[in-house]
């Protein structure tokens, strides 16, 4: 599956009448495609049926595929996770929706103790091809527990794949890949940019790889590494830096686990500087893993200390202060300049 895929597939396909869609519409489009082409794909979660999901990601799917393919579940995340594992072990391809990032903790036991272990535990006799879709992160003025950036805790779990698309095209291609993947995938959806912009995404069933980072912008002075909704601020920062004559490369990690470190290392080998941007708290956030690999595998390339621009090591505040919590464009620009001043 590994491939040099630095560009989105968008626009490349020959599907008819492709129209511009948002990130969340791309998710719906991918679900529908795969459900049309694979009978074993089943969608389940709270309010995913008639209501089409609280974010409308599954809008219309129950009407299209019926209540035996799109299932509302009882209100219990343990139930959703456990059912999903059981269904997957029996040869279905369940795509479960977590309603919000803050409600996934009761699912961890079944993911960590079972989903990622069935293949290993039974020496390949049973497997667990499931996808857990998780609307992720802050910035939508939602109530408590609706704005968590908790991807890091999954990245230490063996056997898992953890991805987070940040564009409509990547959302489409990576969701198709996630459903087709024979092992469990956590698919984080940056909800702040669900409807940020539209992009033409041909509905051609073309999957994207689940193990490559995307270089969104080339640059030569500093490498900005990020994922999810922060792609927005990071690209803005790169533009501001350009205005000041600083050339920033922007990498969307997109696939956190397994990590395509080669793409990051190659960039840092050229720039000598790296700023890692993420919304989750700094300490032991996934940025730490990237910085750690730089410290060991790219040490001699580094011209300046690795910077991390992240959420603070406190809780995501209620919404009056949430934007003060998150990495801002200004903080990214400042950190990038620090790396340039350092050497």
């Amino acid at each position, binding site marked *: 599956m590994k491939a040099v895929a630095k560009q989105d597939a968008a626009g490349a396909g020959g599907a008819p009448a492709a129209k511009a869609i948002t990130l969340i519409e791309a998710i719906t489009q991918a679900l529908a495609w795969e459900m049309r082409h694979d009978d074993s794909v089943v969608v389940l979660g709270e309010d995913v049926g008639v*209501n089409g999901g609280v974010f409308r990601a599954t809008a219309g799917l129950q009407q299209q595929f019926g209540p035996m393919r799109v299932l509302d579940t009882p209100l219990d995340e343990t139930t959703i996770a456990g059912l999903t594992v059981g269904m997957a072990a029996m040869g279905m391809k369940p795509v479960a929706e977590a309603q919000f990032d803050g409600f996934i903790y009761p699912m961890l036991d079944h993911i960590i103790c079972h989903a990622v272990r069935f293949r290993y535990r039974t020496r390949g006799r049973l497997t667990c091809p499931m996808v857990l879709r998780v609307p992720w992160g802050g910035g939508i003025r939602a109530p408590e527990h609706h704005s968590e950036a908790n991807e890091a805790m999954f990245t230490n779990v063996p056997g898992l794949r953890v991805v987070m698309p940040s564009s409509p095209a990547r959302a489409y291609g990576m969701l198709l890949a996630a459903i087709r993947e024979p092992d469990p995938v956590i698919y984080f959806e940056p909800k702040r940019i669900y409807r940020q912009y539209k992009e033409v995404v041909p509905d051609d069933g073309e999957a994207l790889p689940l193990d490559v980072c995307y270089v969104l912008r080339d640059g030569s002075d500093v490498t900005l590494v990020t994922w999810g909704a922060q792609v927005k601020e990071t690209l803005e920062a790169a533009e501001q830096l350009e205005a000041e004559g600083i050339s920033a490369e922007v990498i969307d990690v997109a696939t956190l686990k397994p990590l395509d470190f080669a793409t990051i290392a190659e960039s840092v080998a050229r720039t000598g500087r790296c700023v890692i941007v993420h919304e989750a708290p700094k300490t032991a956030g996934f940025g730490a893993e990237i910085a750690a690999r730089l410290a060991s595998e790219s040490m001699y390339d580094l011209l300046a200390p690795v910077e991390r621009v992240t959420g603070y090591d406190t809780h995501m505040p209620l919404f009056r202060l949430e934007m003060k919590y998150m990495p801002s464009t200004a903080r990214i620009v400042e950190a990038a300049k620090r790396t340039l001043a350092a050497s």
Partner: protein
Amino acid sequence: MRIAASFEIEYLQYLAPDGTLAADLPPQAPAADEVLELFRRMLFLRTFDGKAVALQRTGKLGTYAPCLGHEATQIGIGAMMRPEDVLAPSYREYGAQIMRGVQLREILLYWGGDERGNDYRNEPARHDFPWAVPIATQCLHAAGAALAFKLRGEKRVAVTCCGDGGSSKSDTYAAINAAGAYALPFVQCIINNGWAISVPRSAQTGARTLAQKGLAGGLHCLQVDGNDLFAVLEGMRRAMERARAGEGGTVIEFLTYRLHDHTTADDARRYRDEAEVKDAWTRDPVARLRTWLTAQGLWDEAREEEWIAECTRQVDAEIDAYLGTKSQPPEAMFDYLYADPPPDILEQRAQLLALEGRA
């Protein structure tokens, strides 16, 4: 056929939907003037609820979960608790909370995106649990509180609420199980309003009643008409007395209806038949009690008008207090994180202040 065990679950209803008595009032029913006072609280709650929704619609409040239709259940639950008891609510039990001293401005602050809303200033709410957004987790906290009371030999009861959706949650089952295992002074209120966002009660479980979930843990079980204040009070009275007498926990299912959308972020027309809502209005807890009180000669249109005006004044004053509350400074996100904040936290706090130009 040998029978290992058999069970019966009682149903309580005294006031019929049309406001006439469906059964003799229980001997322990409160005096009419006390009932009148509770009715006033129900109207107060409804006044507040409507205004909170309006505030949200005009952009002055975040997402808000209305309690329209839940007035008898909520006010009745709060009314039967003593100050020393403890309440562990979900996110919607304003009525019970108001009875315990929670201020409207606190409710508004919380839904307005400000942590200070959970810092209830008045007793006895001050020792109650805050709103719990992760469904039903509060039920286990209440069981833990009840366990603390029992271990310390305190005569206090822990009361918790969850919805029909919440009754499916592992935590609710776990709380019921623990309450039974330790014979705790614990009351699990299951507020069955027919819907969990878009999922109807029928899709949550194959159980005939939600009350019977208590049987799984050996608790006492009751089903009551949650739109009948008398039934709510009587059900709660029995449960609280059992708990205080050391006889263990009770699960009460309150049958009511969510007359509004799930929250202001929801549009129930997508999944719910308007006819069902219309029908539910015929069981409105407020109208029903009004009819009864009016028949008793204790209420009339003039008194209602006067009281609504008074409610409006009080609610508006609280809204003003809410709107006049300045946001916390950004560095508040670092406060109350640890009793003894580590250096890294203090450094990040300083960074934030510097960014704000206030270093």
